[in-house]
């Protein structure tokens, strides 16, 4: 096979099934919960693709399909009061961290029942009650915001952690340098998770990035680094747990580079002139959902009947969210300037 994005030992994920697994991933409920989260993200995103094609969703949509194991694997280790910063491709992070599904769907529709009351849309979903400090339309903007959340935790002497999700496109931004240096010098409880999905918008990482092993960027800042097969959920859980535990114990930040592949285009409808169909098809052989199904079967935790059952349940959940969004109202025009400030500004107009 032509593996364009992983080193040899990650091929098809078979070898990596043999790595020592987290103890509780032998547990049926924990494993199935993670499986449901993977499915929920996949189904949510595929549903959005279909709705977008029907013209039901304004704006544009960036889907997380193919990368689900990273968000689910990392967030499995988090508490509700831990923070995540996210990207323009943020639905998966939000779902993995526990955002309300109806509120998320309604936000993507631009409805008043949306989690951000229709002000943000797909690229700006957030749920501060769940520690989700927002998806962000500016690449790598979350890195410096995560540093601030880490500083806040340290100042308040709490034991929360911050996960900063960003991408291989983001890793070339100056904010990454500024944030990593600061988090490292202050030993802030921040875990940088770089999702290496091979493309910065429409441009290959290989054309734009000075090193092929992105984890060496962390070495430059005196940080711990980890590399992981981002399509292998169990590996992501293991590796990110180490980084999260270290952060919680005050040992400072880690850069985790999770290799993966963006199955969809940059946005839904992207003609993808910059890559071949073969490349995409080849990558789909390492679908994180299939790899985890293999794992569950191999360890006798679930079988294909169980998978079908879970898929049905998740589909119903997502369909209910679509109905909720479709039946919700749009925000009223006279509320367009609500939420600009915390108080009324007289003489502003």
């Amino acid at each position, binding site marked *: 096979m032509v593996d364009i994005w992983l080193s040899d030992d990650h091929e098809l994920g078979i070898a990596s099934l043999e790595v020592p697994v987290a103890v509780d991933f032998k547990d049926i409920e924990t494993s199935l919960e993670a499986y449901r989260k993977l499915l929920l993200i996949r189904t949510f995103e595929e549903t959005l693709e279909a709705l977008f094609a029907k013209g039901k969703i304004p704006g544009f949509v960036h889907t997380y399909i193919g990368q689900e194991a990273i968000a689910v694997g990392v967030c499995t280790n988090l508490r509700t009061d831990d*923070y995540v*910063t996210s990207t323009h491709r943020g639905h998966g992070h939000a779902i993995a961290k526990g955002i309300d599904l109806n509120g998320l769907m309604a936000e993507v529709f631009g409805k008043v029942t*949306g*989690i*951000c*009351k*229709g*002000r*943000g849309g797909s690229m*700006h979903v*957030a*749920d*501060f*009650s769940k520690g989700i*400090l*927002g998806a*962000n*339309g*500016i690449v790598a*903007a979350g*890195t*410096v*915001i*995560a*540093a*601030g*959340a*880490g*500083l*806040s*935790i340290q*100042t*308040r002497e709490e034991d929360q952690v911050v996960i900063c999700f960003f991408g291989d496109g983001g890793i070339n931004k*100056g*904010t990454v*340098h*500024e*944030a990593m*240096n*600061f988090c490292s*010098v202050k030993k802030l409880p921040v875990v940088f998770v770089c999702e290496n999905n091979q493309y910065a918008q429409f441009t290959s990482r290989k054309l734009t990035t000075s090193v092929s092993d992105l984890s060496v960027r962390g070495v430059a800042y005196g940080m711990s680094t980890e590399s992981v097969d981002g399509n292998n959920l169990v590996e992501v859980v293991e590796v990110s747990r180490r980084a999260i535990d270290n952060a919680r114990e005050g040992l400072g930040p880690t850069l985790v580079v999770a290799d993966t592949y963006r199955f969809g285009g940059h946005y839904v409808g992207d003609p993808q002139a910059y890559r071949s169909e073969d490349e995409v098809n080849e990558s789909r052989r390492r679908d994180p959902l299939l790899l985890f199904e293999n794992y569950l079967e191999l360890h006798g935790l679930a079988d294909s009947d169980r998978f079908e059952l879970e898929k049905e349940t998740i589909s119903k959940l997502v369909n209910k969210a679509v109905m909720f969004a479709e039946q919700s109202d749009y925000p009223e025009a006279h509320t367009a*300037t*609500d*939420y*600009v*400030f*915390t*108080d009324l*500004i*007289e*003489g*502003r107009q």
Partner: protein
Amino acid sequence: MRSISFGQATVEATAAAMREDDTVVITGEDIGWGGNFGQFKGLLEEFGPKRVLDMPISEALILGSAVGAAVTGLRPIASLSFVEFTMGAMDEIVNQAAKFRYMFGGQVSVPMVVRASDGVLRSSGPQHSESFEAFFSHMPGLKVVAPSNPADAKGLLRSAIDDDDPVVYLENKKITFRRGPVPEEDYRTALGQASIARTGSDVSLITYSVMTQHALEAAQVLLEEHSVDAEVVDLRSLVPLDIDSVLRSVAKTRRAVVCHEAWTFGGFGAEIASQINEHLFGELAAPVLRVGAQSAPIAFSPPLERALVPEASEVVQAVLRTVKP
């Protein structure tokens, strides 16, 4: 009343806020040693390095981390030495701080203060002499404060730190060393309330920051040499804007000159002039004039710097054009 400098007045406001509320922290460039204008003097000694943080010269980090801290329980004051340095963090100010509350549907507020020194001071050159309040005022979601004297500097900074929205607090270099009467007790000056720095009947000078001082000097000259009685309206905060005080004054004098050190073209003065026209067009005795810098980077060489940036004499000239057609 005792007299202290603008910089010292801001130290008092910061220290009072930090004593009252443990979540107030100050971060930025060169805080610990006291700052270029003594505006942080003594804070490190009193509050320690956990709350008074010397940051790397990483402007995006300084302002981005302030946003992250502000939405997770702190009230950061983030300081950049010169306002030009905010240009390295415009994403954090414009796309993050200003928009968080709105784009997340009111889930959070962003209680942070951005402090920066602006304006001309003795040949600081093109990248250390400018005034950017027009950028900040243009952005929905930011409040903008530009005090003109030590007493206001103290009260307005105290209110800015209290405020639940991001506030850009601009401290003009030329007046940061200047002294003035400042009450010793802790007090707040509300944002969005202009002050009448001088009452007059013939013309309204609408201004803020250092130009308030120049306008007051101009008013003295106008009275003594031209028998023109000028009223000086010091806006103090640009957002929120106290347009009512402006309109009241101009309705009385029927003439207005809007003065600032920033460039005239596309400047904040255009907003004021336009609002005066919208509300009082039929009552004006003369067109509203603007006094500001010429459209060029602020030059290094002293005569060029002086040629570009207005002081009291330019204000006098403009007023004479409105009163003697």
